[in-house]
């Protein structure tokens, strides 16, 4: 994703990627740093990653999008190149109050990418168009 994040967050994802590759777990000091930067979102996002809730959809045209399954089973479509999530937390905390960097879904995408736990799925061009436009494509 295009970097809208402060350098400390970027570095954190890099460190997580490196360590997770070696040890398949995130050490406590990195977990503390993650909570420090992202607040309560961090635990919820890790929970989403644990449940393999992040999928990268791609269509024959080459277009990609992330789909995150929320705790209630609702699907959130996020873009691969910039930050947007249709959830209320993104609208309220990130856009309106400007007091959060990411919602748990977007953080989940970053973590799942860093940890190599993103599911892959192929869909049709029209299916991905509908999702990107904010519609609920029939599956």
């Amino acid at each position: 994703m295009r970097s809208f994040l402060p350098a400390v967050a970027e570095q954190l994802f890099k460190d997580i990627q490196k360590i997770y590759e070696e040890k398949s777990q995130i050490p406590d000091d990195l977990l503390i740093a993650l909570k420090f930067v992202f607040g309560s979102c961090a635990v919820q996002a890790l929970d989403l990653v644990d449940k393999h809730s992040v999928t990268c959809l791609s269509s024959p045209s080459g277009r990609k999008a992330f789909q995150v399954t929320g705790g209630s089973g609702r699907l959130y479509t996020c873009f691969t190149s910039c930050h947007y999530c249709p959830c209320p937390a993104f609208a309220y905390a990130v856009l309106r109050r400007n007091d959060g960097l990411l919602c748990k879904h977007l953080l989940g995408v970053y973590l799942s990418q860093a940890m190599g736990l993103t599911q892959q799925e192929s869909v049709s061009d029209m299916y991905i168009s509908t999702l990107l436009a904010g519609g609920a494509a029939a599956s």
Partner: protein
Amino acid sequence: MVDVLTHVFSTFIAKGGQVSHVRGGLSSPCSALVVGDRSMSRSVLLLAALTAVSRRGMKVLFFTRTQIQTLPPSVQSCLPNLSPDSLKMIKFCYPQTLEELLLQVASLHEPVNTSPTAPSLVIVDRLQNFLCGPGGGGGFHQGEQSCAAHLSALLLDTAAFLTQVLECRAPGLAPCRLLASFQLELEAGPADPGHPHPVLAVLDRYFPARCTLDRDESYAAAAAGLEEVWRVDLSGAGPTDPTDRTSQEWQLVVFTNGLMEFRSV
């Protein structure tokens, strides 16, 4: 898009005028938001579109809710040698609602829209028509910010995708640029720097550069007997360092006979 806008302004700076060089330093983000008077913004968008097709051979998509029947005389005066073929390179799309606009933009990756060539410039005229409730002005609700974020993110993500397609198939026409205009409704009152318009604040979050058109109401402008004088301020954040904001300024003069002239400041 800033490169095309810069090109527009530098190309049309008064013939015989002393300065035509463009001050360096402005990094070249490919997306810009034009903020200002609605008819003047549309003229700038059309000029950018026509410049892109006629001088650079780019394919242009122009999204607008209201049909454009004729080119404003001021735009024609800037491009006296415009060929009808250039106009054909601009594809006008007329979505009527935000949902229609989102779906049309979301479909741009489909082969029918990228062959034989993908567009190099995507323009959306008057975002407020899609983002601010009917009548505009007062009736702000939180949903508008989310809609503005969705549309901006979709436009930027689409431009990023089309850039990849162009780099593969027609590197000379890459990257895909994005240009959109937004005007505050009059009822919203004068801009308050402490409390920016909620929708504009969201658009600024996504668009890396902004071109602001301000009517110059000063006595000097009026005394010069000119119909309208506009300040054109192009500012952009560096792609890597948001503190590295740079800006360039032009003056746009519209004479009583409709002729338009850019002057560097």
